[in-house]
């Protein structure tokens, strides 16, 4: 057996926000406070190509971005990653959208900006401990 199989798999997180500073800030914070591998994407298109290439375990998704509302974005991501579905977490400055996402089966969590750091890390710890998300937990 090669040593490689004993190394715990790194968990990958994709942070999607059209506001660069906001995406970068959340990325840096999670990098510093967890062992997740974190990348930022600044738009829907960027997020889709990144997600397809790197199959993240979880995606933090801003719900108001150019080129589609948050729920459409979620659908696009889930469709593109149907082989290995990521955990979707909505992060939004819009309290109505946050409420909507909190009762939407596509999202494993929903956070109002500014996201509570402890809550965010707890969510990631839960994702890391749990089994990988299995299909078909797709769009309703």
């Amino acid at each position, binding site marked *: 057996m090669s040593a490689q199989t004993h190394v715990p798999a790194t968990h990958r997180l994709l942070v999607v926000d059209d506001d660069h*500073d906001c995406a*970068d800030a959340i990325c*840096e*914070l999670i990098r510093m406070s967890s062992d997740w591998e974190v990348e930022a994407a600044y738009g829907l298109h960027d997020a889709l190509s990144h997600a397809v290439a790197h199959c993240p375990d979880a995606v933090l998704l801003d719900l*108001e971005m*150019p080129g589609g509302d948050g729920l459409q974005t979620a659908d696009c991501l889930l469709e593109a990653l149907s082989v290995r579905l990521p955990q979707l977490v909505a992060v939004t*400055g819009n*309290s109505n959208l946050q409420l909507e996402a909190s009762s939407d089966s596509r999202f494993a969590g929903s956070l109002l900006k*500014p996201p509570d750091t402890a809550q965010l890390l707890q969510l990631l710890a839960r994702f890391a401990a749990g089994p990988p998300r299995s299909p078909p937990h797709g769009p309703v």
Partner: protein
Amino acid sequence: MALSEFITAQQEAILAECEAFAQTLLPAAAKMDREALRDHAAQVLAAIALDMKQPQTRRQARDKSRGRGALAEGDEPTAASTHGGLRATAGFDVNQAAAEYRALRASVIRLWLESGPRLGREEVFELVRFNEAMDQALAESILNFAAEAAHMRNLFLGVLSHELRTPLATIVASAHSLVLATRLQKHLPGAAERVLRGGKRIESLLNDLLDYVRSGIGEGMRVAPTAVDLGQVCDRVIGELQALYPQIVIEVDRRGELAGVCDEQRVAQAVSNLISNAIKYGTSGAPVQVELSGEEDDEMTIRVRNAGPAISTETRDSLFEPLVRGVTSDGTGVNLGLGLYIVREIAQAHGGSVDVDSSAEHGTVFEIRLPRHADASEASAFSSLRMN
């Protein structure tokens, strides 16, 4: 002819006069559907005429004069009430909304008197009834105007809180990282810069908000003009924006004498708003052209031009109204919808004006005209309330 009958018979003439008046209430009236405007005035008039023909008790008369009666029975909103709501959404201020009733009242009475009625006890009594009904309609209209305005304010507060939350998220997350970094004796220059930018963004949102609130409560925008060179003011603004958007080319063309008297900070803010808009709403990556012209003795103009799709005529009319948000070239709503409103306030506070021209061929041009020597102004909001 009895007044109530006169109103019914002369409805067309009365409405034509009122419509002409409403059209002077620009710019909000410009985006009003003319037919909707006329329809509701007609309904208000019909309701008043009908009310005048009904017998009424002293109690009903007293209630009506105090705005407690109702011109229509049942739960249906009255024409006057609908009218008030429409005026609020059309961007009328309360004075403009009320002015339409002044016009309606004046038109009816003037046209009726011109028709040479016999002025006996009956006619005076009818005139009183007419005024009571007018007052009732006005009260209903204003009540619904206020309710609609409150609704719009709530929507705006939602947008504001949303716009504040994103930079706040940046600041909170970056500050957390900085705390962790300090413990690890690491440097995070990126985080410190993000905190600064986030703070600046919140500050500028709140400044815009303050300007809006002040203008809304009639204080208007005050300007403190000093001797400045418009070219230098614009250079400073362009330098700042160029640092924020290094990939955008901002071309400047200067003509004539640009020395004048204006409020340097406010003019800089207006120019900054226009150039930022050109960057956000224009064709992505295309250069922004700034033309400064001081060829006239008594006037200086600033033109900001961007390539991009033409702005439709209807949108053009409402662009300078507060809380109107455009669609940016990358599709994000990135502001409170106060940028152009503040530009107009600044221009007007200087005794100047702002205008827009837009076509697919030549792009969109915003033009600010400023008197070369601006006076320290009184509140511009008062001047915008001035009735024609």
